[in-house]
C-alpha cells in the first residue's frame, strides 16, 4: 500500500483553505477533511514513513505501528464529530484552529523522534489556546493567557529534557526512556503536565469551561490523550505514575462534587478519568497498557459527548451554573437522552463503552495484586457516577423547575452527539471491534457474570447513596481553589511586592543618589573648611561634657547661620601659602618615598 498523504498534513495544510470557503461548500469541506484523514490512516502500512534528514538526524514524521494507529483512528473520528458539532459556527478562525489542533495531535502520535514530537506539541498548545480566546470574553482572555503560559512552561521543560537526552544518548529516537536521569524526569514532567496530573492540572479545569462551546469539545479530546500516548510510548511501567494516577482519579472526583459550573464539573472528571490511564501506564503490564489505550479511546468519545451535551445546554440557555438550571428535560429531551448515554459510558455501566475499557485497567491492577489501587479506582468510579451521571443531569434536566424554555440545539449539534452516542453504545455492546485494534497481546473478557452483577451493584447502590444524600449534594454558588491559586493569587502578591515595598526602596535609592548626596556635596564644596568646622563641632558635642555643650551648640548655630559666609575672610594669604607649601612638600615626599 502506498502512503499517499500524512493524516496530520491533511488536516493542517487542509485547514488553510477553510477561510476561502463559504456556506454549504465550507460545511462539506469541514467534514471531508477528517474523513480523508481517517481513510489515509486506515491505509497506512506499519513502518517508518516520511523520514527526512536534518542536521545529521532522522526526523520521522510517520512512525506507524499498532499503538500510533489506534490513537490516530480515534483522533480522526473525533475531529469528524467535533467538526460536525461545530458546523453552524461562522468563525473561520475557530475552524482553522480546531483543524490545526487535531492535525498536530496526529503529528505527535505519528512522530518517531523527539524533535518532530516537540514541534507538533507546541503547535497543539497555540492552536488549542485560540479555541479559548475565541470566546472573546474577559474571563476567556485571562484564562487563555494562563493556559498558554502554563503550556509554554511545560514545553520549555520538555525541550530541556529532550536536549539533555540528546546530549547524553546521541539519539533523538522516541522510545521507552528508562534511565531515570534528569533528562528522564524533565521529559516526564513535560508529558504529565499535559496529562493534567496534579499539581500540574489546574490549567485544565481553569481553561476548558471558558473556551467556546464547540472549542471545548476539541479541547477535552486531544491534549490529555496525546499525553497518554507519549506516556505509553516513553514511560511504560514507571512506578511513580501509579500513585499519581490513583490520586488523580480521586482528586477529580472530589472537586467535581464541589463544582457548580457544569462544564468545569466535567473538566474535573477528565482529570479523574485520565487518572485511570496514567495508573495503567504506571503498572506497565500488557493488560494495563491495553487498558490505558482502550480507555483513552472510549474516553475521547464519551467525554466529547458529555461536553457536547452540557455545551448544548450552555449554548441554548446562556447559563453555565447548575444552581441556575433545572427542569430542562421538558424542552431538551433529545439532548438529555444523548447526555445520559455519555453519562452511563463514563460510569462504566454494562453495555456502554466505559465498561469495556475502565474495567480493563481495574482488572489489570487486580491481576497485578495491587489491592489498594484496585479498591481506590473502584471507589473513584462511584464518584464519577455520582457527579457526572446523577448530580449534573439531576440539577440540569430535573430538580427544581427553573422555568427556562430552551429549545433543542441545531441539528448538526444533535447529529454530532448522535454519532458519539452511537459509538459509545456500539463499543459497549461489541467490544471486540475495539479490542482488535489494541496494540498489545492481552486477552480480556469484560462480560463475565460476576463482573456484571458487581458493576451493577456498585453503581445502583451509589445511586441509592445519591438519593439519600440529595439535600447535602445541592450545588452551591461557589468556586473552588485549585493549584492555579499559586499563579492567580501569587501573581497579585508578586505585583503588590513590586508596587509597594520594592517601589519604596527604589524611590529611596533614587532620592539618596540623585538628590541627597549631590546637594550635600554642593553644600560642602561652598566652604569646605567651614563645613568641616561645623562637622568637627557637631562631633565634639557628642563626646564633650554637658557643661560645654550649650556653648558649642551656640557656636554651631552661629556657624550655620553665616554659612557659607565670606570664604576669603577665612583664608588669609599666609595660610594659603602655608597650605601650598604643605601640598608641595607632600608631593615631594611621595615622589622620593
Amino acid at each position, binding site marked *: 500500500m502506498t502512503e499517499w498523504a500524512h493524516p496530520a498534513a491533511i488536516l493542517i495544510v487542509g485547514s488553510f483553505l477553510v477561510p476561502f470557503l463559504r456556506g454549504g461548500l465550507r460545511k462539506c469541506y469541514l467534514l471531508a477533511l477528517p474523513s480523508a484523514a481517517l481513510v489515509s490512516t486506515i491505509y497506512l502500512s506499519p513502518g517508518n514513513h516520511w523520514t527526512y534528514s536534518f542536521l545529521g538526524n532522522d526526523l520521522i514524521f510517520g512512525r506507524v505501528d499498532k499503538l500510533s494507529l489506534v490513537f490516530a483512528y480515534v483522533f480522526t473520528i473525533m475531529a469528524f464529530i467535533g467538526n460536525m458539532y461545530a458546523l453552524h459556527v461562522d468563525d473561520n478562525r475557530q475552524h482553522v484552529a480546531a483543524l490545526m489542533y487535531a492535525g498536530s495531535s496526529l503529528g505527535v502520535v505519528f512522530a518517531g523522534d523527539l524533535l518532530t514530537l516537540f514541534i507538533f506539541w507546541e503547535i497543539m498548545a497555540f492552536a488549542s489556546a485560540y479555541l479559548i480566546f475565541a470566546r472573546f470574553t474577559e474571563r476567556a482572555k485571562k484564562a487563555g493567557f494562563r493556559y498558554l503560559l502554563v503550556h509554554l512552561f511545560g514545553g520549555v521543560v520538555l525541550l530541556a529534557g529532550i536536549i539533555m537526552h540528546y546530549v547524553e544518548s546521541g539519539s533523538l529516537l522516541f522510545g521507552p526512556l528508562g534511565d531515570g536521569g534528569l533528562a528522564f524526569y524533565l521529559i516526564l514532567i513535560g508529558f504529565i503536565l499535559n496529562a493534567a496530573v496534579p499539581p500540574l492540572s489546574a490549567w485544565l479545569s481553569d481553561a476548558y469551561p471558558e473556551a467556546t462551546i464547540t472549542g471545548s469539545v476539541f479541547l477535552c479530546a486531544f491534549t490529555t490523550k496525546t499525553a497518554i500516548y507519549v506516556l505509553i510510548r516513553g514511560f511504560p511501567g514507571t512506578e511513580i505514575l501509579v500513585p499519581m494516577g490513583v490520586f488523580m482519579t480521586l482528586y477529580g472526583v472530589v472537586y467535581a462534587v464541589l463544582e457548580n459550573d457544569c462544564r468545569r464539573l466535567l473538566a474535573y472528571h477528565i482529570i479523574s478519568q485520565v487518572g485511570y490511564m496514567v495508573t495503567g501506564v504506571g503498572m506497565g503490564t500488557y493488560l494495563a497498557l491495553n487498558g490505558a489505550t482502550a480507555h483513552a479511546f472510549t474516553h475521547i468519545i464519551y467525554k466529547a459527548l458529555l461536553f457536547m451535551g452540557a455545551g448544548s445546554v450552555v449554548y441554548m440557555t446562556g447559563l453555565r451554573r447548575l444552581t441556575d438550571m433545572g427542569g430542562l428535560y421538558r424542552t431538551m429531551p433529545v439532548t438529555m437522552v444523548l447526555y445520559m448515554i455519555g453519562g452511563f459510558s463514563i460510569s462504566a455501566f454494562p453495555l456502554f463503552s466505559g465498561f469495556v475499557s475502565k474495567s480493563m485497567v481495574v482488572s489489570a491492577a487486580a491481576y497485578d495484586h495491587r489491592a489498594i489501587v484496585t479498591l481506590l479506582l473502584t471507589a473513584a468510579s462511584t*464518584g464519577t*457516577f455520582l457527579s457526572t451521571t446523577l448530580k449534573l443531569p439531576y440539577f440540569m434536566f430535573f430538580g427544581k423547575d427553573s422555568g427556562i424554555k430552551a429549545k433543542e440545539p441545531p441539528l448538526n449539534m444533535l447529529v454530532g452527539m448522535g454519532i458519539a452516542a452511537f459509538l459509545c453504545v456500539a463499543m459497549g455492546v461489541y467490544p471486540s471491534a475495539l479490542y482488535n485494534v489494541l496494540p498489545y497481546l492481552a486477552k480480556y473478557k469484560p462480560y463475565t457474570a460476576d463482573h456484571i452483577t458487581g458493576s451493577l451493584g*456498585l453503581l445502583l*447502590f451509589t445511586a*441509592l*447513596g445519591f438519593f439519600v444524600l440529595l439535600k447535602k*449534594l445541592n450545588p452551591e*454558588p461557589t468556586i473552588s481553589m485549585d493549584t492555579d491559586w499559586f499563579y492567580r493569587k501569587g501573581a497579585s502578591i508578586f505585583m503588590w511586592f513590586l508596587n509597594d515595598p520594592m517601589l519604596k526602596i527604589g524611590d529611596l535609592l533614587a532620592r539618596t543618589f540623585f538628590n541627597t548626596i549631590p546637594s550635600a556635596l554642593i553644600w560642602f564644596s561652598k566652604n569646605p573648611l567651614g563645613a568641616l568646622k561645623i562637622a568637627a563641632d557637631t562631633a565634639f558635642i557628642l563626646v564633650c561634657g554637658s557643661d560645654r555643650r550649650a556653648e558649642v551648640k551656640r557656636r554651631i548655630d552661629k556657624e550655620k547661620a553665616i554659612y557659607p559666609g565670606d570664604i576669603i575672610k577665612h583664608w588669609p594669604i599666609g595660610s594659603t601659602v602655608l597650605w601650598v607649601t604643605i601640598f608641595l612638600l607632600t608631593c615631594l615626599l611621595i615622589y622620593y618615598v
Partner: protein
Amino acid sequence: MKVSARVKVAFYVVLLAVFASDFFITREHPVFPWDRIPGFSAVYGFISCVVIAMLSKFIGHHGIMKKEDYYD
C-alpha cells in the same frame, strides 16, 4: 420534580434484584478475599459514594470553596 411512588418502588425492586443476583453467580477470577463475598460491591459502592460526598463537602467547606468573585 417529585419522584413518584411507582418509580421509587421500581428502583428499590431493581436494587434488591441486583443485590440478590450477586449470590447466584459463579465467580471466574476472584483475586482478593472480598471478591468472594456476595454483595460486596453493592455495599462498597454505597459506602464509597457516601464517603466521597461527605469528605468532599467537608474539605470544600473547610477552605477550598470560595465566593465566586474570589479572583476578581
